[in-house]
């Protein structure tokens, strides 16, 4: 413990000192002794969570493919300790980027277990009953493994959005407990994930803060400049290509998440791989499944293992979040109309909704999309899309000046033909609208949204 709310020991506990508290230092993290070597970086979830709210998240996310409910929440909670953002860092709509540790520490998600396991099998699970006021606990010592249990009688929420006011955030508590598993004790920093207590309706533990980062970096060292880093994964047929930096010339390994459930936590490995330092290629083993891949260079040091990178193991590029580009010019409201979005370009998730805001009330307009970006004068605004234009249905701006399009990849024009959303391809969306009071052209446009489709 580097700082404390408690009276400093050894000062003599007299009444005169009762209200004497030491000043808080910037670092308040603590450790419990020990660390997890490369062979203990695996974690699995035994999904025996019994309350409906523990397990009712059915929102697919491309950065956590194929897992839902409690398993997805716990995966997110653990992955927050990764050295670098997990893929593009997305997946938590509340607390921002996932993967913030900055240490020579990275975990390996190994899917679901078939039992609660022993006290050093590195499995998360629910335990029956309750211990009033205790939400969850980690069993250690840590160097040969751990086990994390979540009490059944707690009203858990598995996200991905805010949990209810009477629910405890499973993702945040998983992040806290995994912090114990990797060697951290509690922190006196009230904003840290490792703060000892948390109330219901609070998601703040999902995101580690600078005090937590200082703690994990003290145990494992700050991420080394020679640590392998994955920056992308591409699947072609049965072959995986991992790109990044600082791979060894020979003796590299690619670690995969196991397919299905069970196993003993041991990652599925392809070993003995050579590299030019930035690329690794291997055949995908039959027992590998959707999850994370990691690269272990020819080193057993903490710094020898890369960041985990999510993959479906399906052909196509990684998913990246859509992005706004181009500009919009003021309309008759005096403000420009702008696009925003929720969801992703993931065909599997099928969750993209585009909204145009800042429209004059009641005006008619259309969303349209095409293949290429441009930026040329068009009416009172700019044309930001060209090539293969597809126009969607006319709609009228709602009160408040908004128009919305739910993009459904399973229905026309997105499911086939020239307007089809195809994995690996990019489409660009814009909104055109009439605005007779906004200038001589009588129409205007929004800015634009670029969406690259993925699995």
């Amino acid at each position, binding site marked *: 413990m580097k700082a404390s709310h*408690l009276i400093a020991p050894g000062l003599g506990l007299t009444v005169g000192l009762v209200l004497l508290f030491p000043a808080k230092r910037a670092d308040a993290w603590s450790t419990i002794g020990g660390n997890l070597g490369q*062979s203990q970086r695996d974690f699995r979830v035994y999904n025996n969570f019994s309350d409906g709210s523990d397990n009712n998240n059915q929102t697919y996310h491309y950065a956590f493919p194929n897992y839902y409910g409690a398993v997805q929440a716990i995966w997110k909670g653990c992955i927050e300790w990764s050295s670098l953002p997990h893929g593009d860092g997305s997946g938590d709509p509340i607390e921002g980027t996932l993967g913030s540790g900055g240490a020579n520490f990275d975990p390996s998600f190994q899917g679901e277990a078939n039992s609660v396991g022993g006290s050093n099998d590195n499995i998360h699970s629910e335990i*029956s009953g309750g211990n009033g006021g205790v939400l969850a606990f*980690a069993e250690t010592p840590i160097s040969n493994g751990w086990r994390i249990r979540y009490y059944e009688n707690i009203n858990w929420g598995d996200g991905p959005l805010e949990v209810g006011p009477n629910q405890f955030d499973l993702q945040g508590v998983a992040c806290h407990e995994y912090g114990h598993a990797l060697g951290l004790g509690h922190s006196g920093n009230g904003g840290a994930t490792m703060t000892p207590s948390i109330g219901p309706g609070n998601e703040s533990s999902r995101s580690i803060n600078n005090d937590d980062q200082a703690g994990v970096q003290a145990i494992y060292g700050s991420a080394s400049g020679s640590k392998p880093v994955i920056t992308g994964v591409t699947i072609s047929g049965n072959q995986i290509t991992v790109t990044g930096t600082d791979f060894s010339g020979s003796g590299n390994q690619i670690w995969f998440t196991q397919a299905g459930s069970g196993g003993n936590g041991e990652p599925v490995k392809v070993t003995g791989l050579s590299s030019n330092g930035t690329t690794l290629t291997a055949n995908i083993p039959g027992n590998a499944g959707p999850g994370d891949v990691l690269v272990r260079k020819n080193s057993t040091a903490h710094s020898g293992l890369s960041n985990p990178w999510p993959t479906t193991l399906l052909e196509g590029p990684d998913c990246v979040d859509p992005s706004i580009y181009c500009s919009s010019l003021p309309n008759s409201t005096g403000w420009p109309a702008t696009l925003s979005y929720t969801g992703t370009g993931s065909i599997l998730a099928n969750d993209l909704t585009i909204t145009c805001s800042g429209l004059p009330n009641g005006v008619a307009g259309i969303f349209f999309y095409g293949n290429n970006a441009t930026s040329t004068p068009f009416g009172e605004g700019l044309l930001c899309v060209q090539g293969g234009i597809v126009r969607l249905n006319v709609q009228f701006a709602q009160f408040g000046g908004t128009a919305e399009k739910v993009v459904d990849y399973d229905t026309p024009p997105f499911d086939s033909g020239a307007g089809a959303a195809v994995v690996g391809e990019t489409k660009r969306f814009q909104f055109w609208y009439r605005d007779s009071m906004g200038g001589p052209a009588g129409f205007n446009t929004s800015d634009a949204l670029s969406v690259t489709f993925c699995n």
Partner: protein
Amino acid sequence: MIRKTPIRLGLAALALLGAAAFGQAQIERLNLEQMVVKTDDAVVGVIIGSEVIRIDHPVDGPELYFTHLTVEGRSLVDGSPEEVVVTFAGGFVDRENGVWNSEAPSAEDTKLGNEIVAFYAHTENMGGDLEANALYAAHGGLYRTVEGRNGTIVLGRGEGYAVQHNIALEALNTRIKQIALEKK
């Protein structure tokens, strides 16, 4: 991967050393009012016994360890003499068998002969079908006392704990009685 290596004395000692500095758990954030409302009683007394048991449960799994502490003293709710066994998860049966549980109060806090304030609630199942008086919020339910010039002081545990700041035992007792009366 190497699994199931026996817990060695060194590791156990290391863990206990760590636990001596902290209790490690995520517990519900409770103030004193909430703690008294949610518990059956608070006892101030001396730890006169300690026992660790192991349960291997068909559903909850193997290697469930629980520590029973026997506390002899008086109730802070009604003042009556009391000897009660309070229980928390974790502990070591012997050097080779046990588990350090992140929620357990520290070894330093649970030494035989310590005077403590303990909040507890009867619980039908603490896991593994163990029915017991749970030390409420585990390390968040146990507070050590020290003798000061003007009487006994209960040591606060900081932000997020039911007893946040150090407080005279009698003042804490008065406050607990008040809350308990309002609870009725």
